[in-house]
Each structure stands twice: as C-alpha cells, then as structure tokens.
C-alpha cells in the first residue's frame, strides 16, 4: 500500500523524463543559456564578496521550467547555477562550493515546484487568484530556504563572514523572491496566451493599442517623477505613485496586463537604481516596496481575470440555456411568485398559438384550466416529494381546441422571491400510441382466444354432437311412431319435448362459444366474480368431463364486484384451466382435480387462483413462463400465458405462479375491487 501511494506521488513527478530525449535536451540547453544570460544581465554588484543581487530573475525562470515541464529537468537546474558560479568571473568560487550551492538552489525550487504542482495542485495557467497567491507564498518561502542555505555554504567555505551572512541572506532572499514573483507569473501567463491566441479585431484593436501606449507612458512618467529628483526621501514618498499605473493596468487587463506591467516597472526600477548608483541598502528597500507593488498588482490582476472568466462563463451558459430553450420541443415558461408569466420559449408560443409579447406579463391561470390554479401549482413545486412530479391534463387553447399535456413544475430563486418553471409537453402523439397499443393488445387477445377455442375444437365438436345425436334419435323415433297405426301420445310428447330441450342445449354451447371468440374491443363493465368464474368453468368443463377431470369451484361469499372485461378475464381463467388440465392428464395421477378459488386478497383486491394436481412447472421453464413463444406443447404457440399476463396487467393486476410443487402448480391473479371488500369480520349495514 505504501508503495502504491508512493508510486502515485512519484510517478507524475518523473513524467518529465519520459519525454523524447532530444526535445528535452534542447529545452534544458536553452534553459541553461537563458539562465546564464539573465544571471549576467541582472547582476549589479557583489555584496560582502558574494554575487548576490537585489533583483534575481533566474530563479523565476527555474521555477517556471519546473512548473511547466516537470521535475525531470533536475540536472539542468543543478547545472545552470554551477556553470554560473564557475563561468561568470565576478567572484571566484571553488567548484565544490559552487556545486553545493547549486544543489541547494535546485532542491529549494524543485521542492517548491513539487509542493505547488502535486500537494497544492495549482493550475499553472493561473486562472484562479488562489493559484497565484499560493505561487507567491510558496516561491517566497523557497527563496528564503535557498538564500539561507546558499549563504551558509558560502560562510562555511569562508567566502562570507558569518557576521555579514544574515544581511547577505536577506538581500538574496529579497532578490530571489522578487525575481520569482515578477518573472514566473509573466512567463506562465505568456505561455497560456501563446497557446490560446486571440487576435483583436476592428476599432477595438486601435483603441486597445492607444490605451496600451497610455499605460506604458504612465509607468514611464511615474518612474520619472519618482527618480527625477534624485533624492532618497522624495523617492520613497513618491514610490507609491507606481501603484496607479499597475492598478490601472491590472483592472483593465487582468493578470496578463498586470504581469507585464510589474515586469516593466521592475526593469525600469532596476535601471533607475543602477543609473543613480544607489547604495545596496536603498536598493534593497526599493525592492521590498517593489515586492508589495508586484504582489498587489498581480493579485488584483488575477481577481479581475477570474471575474472576467466567470462573467464570460455566465454569458456562455445563458446563451446555451437560450439555445436549448429555443430548440426544445417542450414548452417552458417561468412565472414569478404572483403568477405572472416572465418568459416563454418558442414551443410555448406554438402550443398556445400566441406570440411571446402577448403571453409575458399575463397571469398563468389565463392559460391553464382553473382546477390547476396558481396556488396548486406552487404547492406542487414546494413539496419536496412532488418536485419533478408530472401531471397530465387537458389544455384548452384560445381557438377552443383541446390538447392533452403533461405538466412539470419546478422552483428556483431565493426564499421570498421564488420563481417557478412550468414545463409543458404535448402528449397527443403519446396518447394516440397508447390507444393503438391498447387496440393491438385487444386484437392479440382475440387471436389468442380463437386459438384457445381451436385447441378445444375436438372437445367442443363432441359436446355438440351429443345433443345432435339425441335430436336425430328422438326425431327418427317419433317418425317411426307416426307410421304406426295408433301412435302413443305420451311417447310422442316425450320425444318432441326432448328434441326441443336438446336443440336448446346445442344452442347454448354455440352461443357461449360465439361470445367467447367474438372480436370485441376491450369493454369494461362491473361484473361479479362468480359470473367470471362460472363463464370460464362452463367452457372448460366440456373438455374436463370428457377427460375425467374434476373441476371444483369455491367463490368466497359477499365478494365485491370488479371492473373488468368479462371475456378477457374468462379467457385468462380458461387458459389457466386448460393448462392445468393438460398438466393433470400428463402426470397420469389418479387424482385428476382442478380447484378454482376466488377470495379477497386485501381490502382493495380480489385474488382468483387455479390449482392443479399435475407434476408442477419444470424448473427450466419457470423463469421464462410468461415470455411469449415459450411452450411445452407440440402445437402450442406459447402465447397463452404471455397474453394472459398482459390482460391482467391491463386490469392493474398481476398474474403469477404462486406455488409450484410436485403435487401441482397454483397460478393466481388479482383484480382491483370495484367498491369496498366485505371481509367476514365486517358487518354490512343494510
């Protein structure tokens, strides 16, 4: 675990090493050359035998390289100050001391870069003021560490007197800190700019150029005023004038302008100090003031840039929102807490057939039906559980046409100043699709019913043949009697009576069958559970009797009625009964029994179950039982249970296998009660 964590921290630090060797070497070489040049140019004088300077930009370059390219440039970071100490013949430094001090410099700034990048995770584009502040703080701290370490090594080597070491270290600290603070942000911002070039266009370009000139001039004038008197007291008092151009530029141009302004002021300041040949102490004091100007200017610039970005992001997001609302097919409108329409999108204009200017400012209750008055909308939006809840209602348009819509209400704004969003969706197409799906379901159920009846054809034919056979026999018998000399009237009467009775019996079977297979669309009516059960059992009984299967029916007394499509529910029951019958017959069991039971399952539902004494449903079939085209029958389509389930679901019930044992399967479905359920415990008031 420790290794993993270390790997996570170290791996990104080393990433710089994985770059192509040539590009890395070129960058390193370029860095070393620029470092040496900067070091040489910025050097003013030796203080107590050490080549420290009140403005030391090379550390700024070092930190920039480390932040941008990573810690892989460690060797170059060591090499540059080492070469500087050996090649620039200002103060003689022994190689070992040069190496030691170079190592201190490198470790200090590599440490700073590591903290900034990996511990603090700053964004080196400096888009946030926080990142700039962290950069200034950490860099200043690193400069302190490097300065004291560096001076300690020089003192140990005898190059500096211990008595002078603190003064030298402070001078070095100030020089390094201001070097980093002035140069690093300028380089980082320039890099970011360079990567996202935006060319100014039109008259703003010239105006911008003019303003730039004025800003540059203001810096020059300030420096002239400060140093024009060549008197230290005035110089210090007037130094604060430099805040003016820096703040101006920062306010107008953000961090990009501020970083260059600060750099220019620094260069101008150093040039002026060099020109007037000020003492190290005075220079140091100016540099301390310069640090304040730089930090203030840069922070202000960063804040301004951040605000500009936030404002741009806001306008982008508003534009995006506008574009979304303009293209959305759902109508979206907002209202204030008095119910007045504040804004509408084009879909709303289409939906209501009115232009936006006629809608905005009107009370929303003008558009929506009275029952969905404003108060109700608001209470919907306020209740946390109801937020986002949809409601379907009919919308009456100005031309009198009615559109079914779905309404969603949302809320935004501060307490006391709430606003509400109303999203209105035209659901006429969905309604049509639902209606056609219902029609399909009804057709499918019909097809399945015909096939169910077809499956019983043999049993039905036999059942019809019985009364026909009887009728024929009675008829022939009567004819025979009539041919006799003296027909017996009693016998004749019996024969004709039986003919009528048997004809009616055949008629009953035919009409029941006809009703069952009839292609009716779904028609719900309030029916008693007994009627449903009896209807299905009467049809199933025919086959059951022929196969020697007994059907037992138990319907609990006082069951409430149900709102159902009688034929469809009978179809489901008949399906279950026929499946049960096949199961019973396939098992060869001596007990051939089907039990139909209807009872109150809860206060709102009635459960009807069909139990058989067959072998139960095979395990491999159990999970797919209700899927279409799953069947065990050689001639089955496998649609019976699937359609039965969709019929029951259309009745807001559920069809399921509630028990499956070797002693038989039990299927059950429930139907919502139409009216209260009277359980045996409750008494009915007559």
């Amino acid at each position, binding site marked *: 675990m420790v290794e993993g964590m270390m790997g996570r921290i170290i791996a990104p630090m080393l990433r710089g090493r994985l770059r192509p060797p040539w590009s890395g070497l070129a960058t390193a070489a370029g860095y070393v050359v620029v470092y040496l040049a900067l070091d040489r140019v910025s050097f003013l004088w030796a203080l107590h035998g050490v080549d420290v300077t009140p403005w030391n930009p090379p550390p700024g370059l070092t930190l920039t390289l480390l932040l941008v390219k990573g810690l892989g440039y460690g060797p170059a970071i060591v090499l540059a100050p080492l070469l500087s100490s050996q090649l620039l013949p200002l103060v003689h430094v022994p190689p070992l001391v040069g190496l030691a001090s170079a190592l201190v410099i490198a470790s200090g700034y590599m440490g700073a870069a590591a903290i900034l990048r990996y511990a603090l995770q700053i964004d080196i584009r400096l888009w946030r003021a926080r990142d700039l502040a962290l950069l200034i703080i950490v860099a200043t701290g690193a400069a302190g560490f490097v300065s004291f370490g560096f001076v300690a090594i020089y003192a140990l080597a005898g190059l500096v007197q211990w008595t002078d070491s603190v003064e030298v270290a402070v001078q070095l600290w100030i020089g390094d800190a201001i070097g980093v603070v002035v140069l690093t942000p300028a380089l980082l911002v320039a890099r970011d700019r360079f990567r996202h070039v935006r060319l100014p266009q039109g008259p703003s370009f010239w105006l911008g150029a003019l303003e730039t000139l004025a800003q540059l001039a203001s810096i020059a004038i300030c420096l002239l005023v400060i140093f024009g008197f060549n008197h230290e007291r005035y110089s210090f008092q007037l130094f604060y004038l430099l805040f003016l151009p820096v703040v101006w530029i920062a306010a107008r141009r953000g961090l990009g302008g501020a970083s260059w302004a600060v750099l220019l002021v620094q260069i101008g300041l150093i040039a002026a100090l060099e020109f007037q040949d000020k003492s190290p102490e005075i220079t140091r004091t100016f540099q301390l003031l310069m640090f304040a100007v730089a930090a203030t200017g840069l922070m202000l610039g960063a804040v301004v840039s951040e605000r500009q970005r936030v404002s741009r992001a806001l306008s982008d997001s508003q534009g995006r929102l506008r574009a979304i609302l303009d293209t959305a097919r759902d109508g979206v409108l907002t209202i204030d807490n008095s119910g007045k329409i504040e804004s509408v999108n084009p879909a709303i204009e289409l939906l209501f057939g009115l232009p936006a200017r006629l809608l905005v400012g009107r009370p929303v209750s003008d558009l929506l039906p009275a029952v969905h008055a404003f108060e109700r909308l608001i209470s919907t939006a306020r209740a946390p559980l109801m937020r986002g809840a949809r409601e379907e209602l009919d919308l009456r348009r100005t031309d009198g046409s009615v559109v079914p819509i779905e309404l969603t209400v949302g809320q935004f704004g501060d307490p006391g100043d709430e606003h509400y969003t109303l999203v209105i969706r035209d659901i006429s197409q969905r309604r049509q699709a639902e209606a056609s799906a219902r029609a399909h379901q009804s057709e499918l159920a019909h097809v399945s019913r015909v096939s169910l009846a077809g499956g019983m054809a*043999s049993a039905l*034919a*036999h059942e019809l*043949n*019985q*009364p*026909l*056979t*009887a*009728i*024929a*026999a*009675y008829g*022939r*018998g*009567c004819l*025979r*009697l009539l041919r006799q000399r003296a027909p017996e009237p009693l*016998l004749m009467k*019996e*024969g004709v009576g*039986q003919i009528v*009775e*048997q004809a009616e*019996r055949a008629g009953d079977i035919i009409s029941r069958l006809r009703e069952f297979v009839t292609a009716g669309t779904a028609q719900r009516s309030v029916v008693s559970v007994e009627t449903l059960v009896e209807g299905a059992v009467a049809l199933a009984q025919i086959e059951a*009797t*022929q*196969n*020697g299967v007994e059907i037992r029916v138990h319907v609990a007394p006082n069951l409430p009625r149900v709102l159902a499509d009688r034929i469809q529910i009978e179809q489901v029951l008949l399906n279950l009964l026929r499946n049960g019958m096949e199961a019973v017959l396939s098992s060869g069991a001596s007990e051939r029994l089907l039990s139909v039971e209807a009872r109150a399952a809860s206060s709102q539902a009635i459960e009807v179950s069909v139990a058989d004494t067959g072998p139960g449903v095979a395990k491999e079939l159990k999970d797919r039982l209700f899927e279409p085209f799953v069947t065990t029958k050689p001639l089955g389509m496998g649609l019976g249970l699937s359609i039965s389930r969709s019929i029951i679901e259309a009745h807001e019930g559920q069809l399921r296998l509630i028990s499956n044992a070797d002693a038989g399967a039990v299927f059950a479905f429930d139907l919502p009660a139409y009216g209260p359920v009277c359980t045996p415990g409750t008494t009915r008031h007559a």
Partner: protein
Amino acid sequence: MRDGTVFVVDDDEAVRRALRFLLHTAGHTVEVFPSASAFLESYEPDQRGCLVLDIRMPHMTGLDLQNELNARGWRIPAIFITGHGTVPIAIAAMKAGAFDFIEKPLRDEALLESVERALGWDQTTREQHLELTALKTRAAVLTPREREVLEMVATGEPNKIIARRLGISFRTVELHRSHILEKMGAHTISELIRIAILLQQDKP
C-alpha cells in the same frame, strides 16, 4: 322381431335416453347404462342381445370394454358409435373383435339394421354353440375304437379301407357305424359326416 335385449352404454344422459327411445319405438327391449363398468357389473353372459356403446367415454372407453369382453370370453356383439375424429379408434375396435361401428350423426336405418344383424348373429352363434355342446356330450359316450372309426368316416373313407387300416373285419366296421349313428342321434351317413366335421373344427 328377434329375441334379445339391446344394451346401450353412453355417458351422456341425453344420448342414452334418446337411443332408448329410438330402439324402443323400433320394438326392441332396451337396457341403458351410464358407463362400461356399470354394464359389466349387471350383465350375465347368458343374456341374449347386443351392445350399443359410445366409443368415447371417460374412465373406460368403448375399446377398453371390448378388450374386457374378450378377456372374459363373453361373445356379445358390440356396435360402436363414433363421433368426429374417432374413426381410427373404431377400426382398432373392429380389429379387437367389435361387431360394427356407426358414425354420428346417426342414421336410424343404419343403427337399426346393424342392431338387427347383431341380434341375429347373436342368436345364430348361440344356437350353434348349443348344438355343438349337445354333440360333444353325445360324442363323450363313444368308445375309443368308435371315435377312430368316426374320424375316418369323416374323411370319407369307404368301409373296406377303414377295415384294412384298422385291421378289423368289414362286418365289425359296419357294426361300429350303426352304433355311432345310434349314439350320435344321426339318421344318415351324410348327417354323420357333418357332425364329424363340426367336432373336428371345434378341436383346437
């Protein structure tokens, strides 16, 4: 009108009663049963008549009943009534020894004609059966030598050949023959030959 009862077996009460009505109007004595097992319980094998039964019944089908009759050695002729789709079963029943089958819807002529034939067949078979039984009783009193002579007479051999074969005299053969005629109740030789053939056929 022939003797014998028509036994109707059908699980459907309406059909059962209708068949009874029809057969009754045609002058038959009819007994009805709601199931094959009810029939088997009450029927005595010496009752004359024929069976009319629906081939498709729960518990014990018509075919089951025919097989049961065969197993019990009861020779009552059975007429099957078949509905739609049961003709193959009817053919199986015929192979199992059923007398006839009639398809629904019933034509009364076909049913009544078949019933007539069945009753006639029952009567003939029963008469033949009775005659054979009487002959067997008579043949039981023949001596072994007389039985030998009767067998040879049945093959149409003349007395001379029979005497030579059996190694007895012509006179003795003639004596045996007169005894056989007397014992079997036959009057002529040709009658005796018919009796001998009947008895031979009955042998397994």
